[in-house]
């Protein structure tokens, strides 16, 4: 199969995972033709291919032009990594007007040669071009990438459905109520017990599974939601990560939801670290992401 790998605005972490495939990497590159991947091979123009893995988000006109070209010339386009699927951490830039970000960084008078026009707001890749399959994860775990590629090469692009991180988490419940809401930097949690029930902010119940829940169950680190919102979260019109987490923490700590919410500093990173740019969550009322996104002359 003819394959291409492209990064738009990204951290290149997904391509680092591609290099982690070890033995599968060798069978992949000998059985397929990697026609375009600036990270790996010296090809400067995008050829006609069967499968393109796109990492990162559209940041400016140049990325947009590239995304369009990729769509035209690829039979199948895969959004690889949470940036391409949901906007990722980079989507947090949506909290500020683009012009202000530029002005604060480069000053009022800054001018650049051949500078591509910046997009007003970060959006997932499928807001710009049609996407055939999604592989979220920041980065996608290497085992998932491998099984994804195996499926894709056999002609079956995987669908988006999945369960949540909690379904894979190997912890037990502590007695309730617990103190909180609290942060792992303030107090070390008990090992092997559910973090959310201990009063810590954990996005496990609202996040897609597939990672093996290593962070909460092996390390005792709360889930930040790096695989993005679960399917259930996206299709249910009345739920969003903030409301759901506050509700669960309220149960763990036996405090009123309003009290829990008022004690959580930094809601945009705490609840929407990887998905602030996801448009579905912006339309959720009364919670959702809209209070945190800067709106430029629009309703």
């Amino acid at each position, binding site marked *: 199969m003819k394959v291409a790998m492209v990064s738009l605005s*990204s*951290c290149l*972490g997904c391509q680092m995972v591609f290099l982690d495939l070890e033995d599968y990497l060798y069978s992949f590159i000998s059985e397929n033709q*990697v026609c375009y991947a600036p990270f790996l091979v010296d090809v400067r123009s995008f050829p006609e291919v069967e499968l393109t893995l796109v990492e990162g988000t559209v940041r400016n006109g140049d990325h947009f032009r590239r995304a369009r070209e990729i769509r035209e010339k690829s039979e199948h386009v895969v959004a690889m990594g949470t940036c391409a699927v949901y906007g990722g951490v980079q989507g947090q830039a949506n909290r500020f007007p683009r012009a202000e970000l530029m002005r604060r960084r480069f000053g009022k008078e800054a001018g650049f040669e051949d500078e591509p026009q*910046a997009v007003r707001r970060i959006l997932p890749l499928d807001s710009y071009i049609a996407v055939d399959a999604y592989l979220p994860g920041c980065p996608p775990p290497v085992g998932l990438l491998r099984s994804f590629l195996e499926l894709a090469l056999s002609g079956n692009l995987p669908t988006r459905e999945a369960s949540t991180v909690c379904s894979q988490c190997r912890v037990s419940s502590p007695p309730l109520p617990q103190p909180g809401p609290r942060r792992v*930097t*303030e107090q070390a949690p008990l090992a092997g017990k559910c973090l959310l029930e201990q009063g810590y902010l954990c996005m496990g119940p609202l996040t897609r599974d597939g990672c093996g829940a290593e962070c909460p169950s092996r390390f005792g680190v709360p889930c930040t939601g790096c695989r993005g919102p679960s399917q259930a979260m996206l299709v249910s019109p009345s739920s969003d990560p903030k409301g759901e987490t506050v509700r669960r923490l309220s149960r763990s700590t036996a405090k009123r939801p309003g009290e829990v919410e008022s004690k959580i500093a930094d809601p945009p990173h705490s609840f929407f670290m990887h998905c602030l740019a996801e448009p579905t969550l912006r339309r959720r009322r009364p919670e959702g992401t809209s209070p945190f996104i800067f709106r430029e002359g629009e309703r």
Partner: protein
Amino acid sequence: MAAVTIDPVTRISGNAGIKVLFNEAGELEKASLQAYGYRGFEYIAKGAHIDNLMPVVSRICGGDALFHQLAAAEAVERALGVAPPQGAELLRELALWGQLFERHAVSLTVHSLPDLLFPSSDPGLRNIISIHKVDEEVIKRVMALKSLGTFIYREVGGRAVHAVNFLPGGAVRDIREEERKGLLERLDEARPLLIETGHLMKLLLRRNAEAVSNLGNLPTSYLALKGEQGMVLRGGGLEVLGPQGESMGAFSPGEAASRITESNSSHSHIRYADFEGADISRVGPLARLNVNRRYGTPLADGELEEVKEQWGMPLHQNMVSHVARILEMIHAWEMMRELLLQPAGEDMRRELAVATGTGTSMMEAPEGLLFYVLSLDEDGTVKELKIIAPLQFNLRALERTLEESAKNVLSGAGLEERSINLLEMAVRAYAPCIQCGVH
């Protein structure tokens, strides 16, 4: 005025282009590195609670993720006046060397080795995929080094790319005894391969003497952290070295940060960073070697002798950065072994109470100096953050190198694929990290 554009530059980390301008007489006017797509991370991190800060800054760069995480963590710890326990410090150090090892391995094998192995072949064939087709073994062997770095980083950091085992105040979990043993075994296994690759890199550089003399030789100043025993990734002061190898002073993180000025480039979202009192400067493997003059571990220092004989000291040759890189990998290998043999500490973290404060950290990322200057609000959120990435320090020198190389290898109007690749080789020797640069 005629212009030559190379877009994208291939086999580097991130998206960038090169533009070379000639005047009417056909003389070279200016060479520049173009990279657009400012990502706004200094503002993205604004308002982040210290608990959320590390996962946020980690996403600046997949290859240097831990360097960003720990630079942020150290800045927070300084702002709050807390020092993490010794056990956590050792673990952090181990993971940092692991990531440096991985990062250098990618730069050497995936990005630069094909040029050095087959300098006369078609650039279209110079990549690990084509080489794998003709010689499977060589690629598997060199990639084994990358896998070793990834393995160590993953075991210590909790997962590949964006680690989760560290937080402001320390680390979450120590590695277990059996994991330590496993890591030591993997390291010991890799020793012959690593030494062999070191010899290979030296041999290849000698064989590519023409590239070494054409692709950047101008003396510059150098900025790097100086350790008591040799090269360090953290701690120690910043030493500034003049082009003749003379010391121009040593600075603490706070002093150093106050002497850096950033300014806009006319053709890129990467801002130049200049150090007060120093002329055009370089950071990274070559700078670290020139400043420290030794690594401080026996294997790496033994291998260094031959390098000093062959290329002198201080080293100004841009292409010799590749050799400095493999020497750092050997040094990293020795450091990781040493760290794994030290007993683990029970105490891994300090619990933090939030408060206002300001902290500065400086660190040697694989590509060079990384600065974080941060202030905290009373609720534990980030009030202001300034990040200065390695490529910002290197950008002037890199463009100077491009000009020098273009004069040497571009023959007037006709531009063939071969000369294009030579310019890219000059860029690859810097192993520039574009996504860190446009943070």
